[in-house]
């Protein structure tokens, strides 16, 4: 039996025309983990999540969810998984209540009172047709459908995209509640780095299909920094161990390091013969931009 809730090994799946997708992806999630998948548009986030959901067949490698292959044995894992797609569309003639009833039939573990309490919390007009609801309200209905059977794994593709700040916060609170109270494993993609830092324990950054970073968020924040060095040679600076990006200014170079500040200071001083004039921590957003920016 596989001990990981999600276990992807050497998984590749590319789209023929765009060449978007994932390449030799290794990704493992233990029970109760909360994992945020980051990347620019087209970096492969949605592909990775659809592979986990068994909606795509990997061209190479193996995908296991609760130890089962979600593509060949979808029924085994699916009852324990909740999913909200990036552009989840339900028939707009249905009401949220209709949707809930459909899901109740599909999932033996559907918790009707949980669904009702979520709908109340979101002040959702459950008797009105989806076509007459706002985008945010339809998104909330989708979330209720994804979580009300109390899944052991929740897969969310850009869950709070396009939601206003209040709705976004309510949405996040529900996800945090599931993490806290149910020990749900959460795998989500997001462009909102602040939200990712709140919700994720670990993050992965996809860049052109490659997982270029897979780290504990707090560790990453403590093991990264920016350093400003006067009169340094940019090429020599870029060659320093752990240096992921350099920016040249008038007479100085800014270096972004994937290591803690004292270590970066030491490497600069020893490698370039000049002590940094200034050092500074990086936000997750700065780090993300430094890692995947400048390339398309």
């Amino acid at each position: 039996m596989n001990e990981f809730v999600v276990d992807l090994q050497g998984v590749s799946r590319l789209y023929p025309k765009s060449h978007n997708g994932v390449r030799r992806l290794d990704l493992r999630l233990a029970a109760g983990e909360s994992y945020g998948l980051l990347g620019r548009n087209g970096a492969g986030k949605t592909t990775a999540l659809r592979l986990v959901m068994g909606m795509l067949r990997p061209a190479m490698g193996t995908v296991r969810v609760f130890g089962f292959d979600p593509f060949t044995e979808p029924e085994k894992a699916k009852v324990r998984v909740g999913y909200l797609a990036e552009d989840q569309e339900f028939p707009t003639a249905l009401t949220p209540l209709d949707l809930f009833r459909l899901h109740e039939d599909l999932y033996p573990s559907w918790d009707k009172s949980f669904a009702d309490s979520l709908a109340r919390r979101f002040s959702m007009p459950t008797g009105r047709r989806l076509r007459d609801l706002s985008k945010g309200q339809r998104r909330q209905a989708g979330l209720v459908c994804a979580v009300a059977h109390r899944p052991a794994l929740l897969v969310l593709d850009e869950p709070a995209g396009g939601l206003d700040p209040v709705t976004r916060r309510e949405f996040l609170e529900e996800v945090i509640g599931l993490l806290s109270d149910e020990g749900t494993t959460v795998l989500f993609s997001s462009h909102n780095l602040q939200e990712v830092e709140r919700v994720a324990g670990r993050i992965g950054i996809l860049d052109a299909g490659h997982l270029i970073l897979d780290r504990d968020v707090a560790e990453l924040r403590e093991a990264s920094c920016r350093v400003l060095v006067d009169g340094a040679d940019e090429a020599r600076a870029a060659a320093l161990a752990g240096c992921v990006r350099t920016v040249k200014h008038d007479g100085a170079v800014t270096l972004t390091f994937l290591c803690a500040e004292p270590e970066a200071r030491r490497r600069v001083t020893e490698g370039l013969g000049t002590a940094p004039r200034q050092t500074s921590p990086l936000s997750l957003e700065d780090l993300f931009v430094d890692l995947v920016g400048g390339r398309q």
Partner: protein
Amino acid sequence: MTRALLIRIDPGDGLPIYRQIVEQVKAAIASGVLSEGDRVPSHRDLARDLVVAPLTIARAYDLLEREGFIARERGKGAFVAARAKKAEPSATAQLNGRASALVRHAQALGLSREEALRALRDAWQEGKEKP
């Protein structure tokens, strides 16, 4: 009774979220907002309140416990520890970073050493006079 706490989380801050929580709980203890024996919110409740992953809160509480600021009792929750207010050698070390930041700030403003020390003394006095 559990003592509610105001904690401000800023994901853009220089510190990781668990460190922000640790610093603010320590500040609450130092300023008397939290006193010895007060029960702090459970890590699940705080996770919900702050909308932060429960593992992050657990990590903050672990560090606070290791440094002697809170004590946890099985089944009862976490409390502000008796010795929390005593400065340990590591506590002075922790202040050093902030102190040098303050010095740099003062120098940037063009203040003299005496002026900076006076500001610190005034702030200290103000802090002490708070209930």
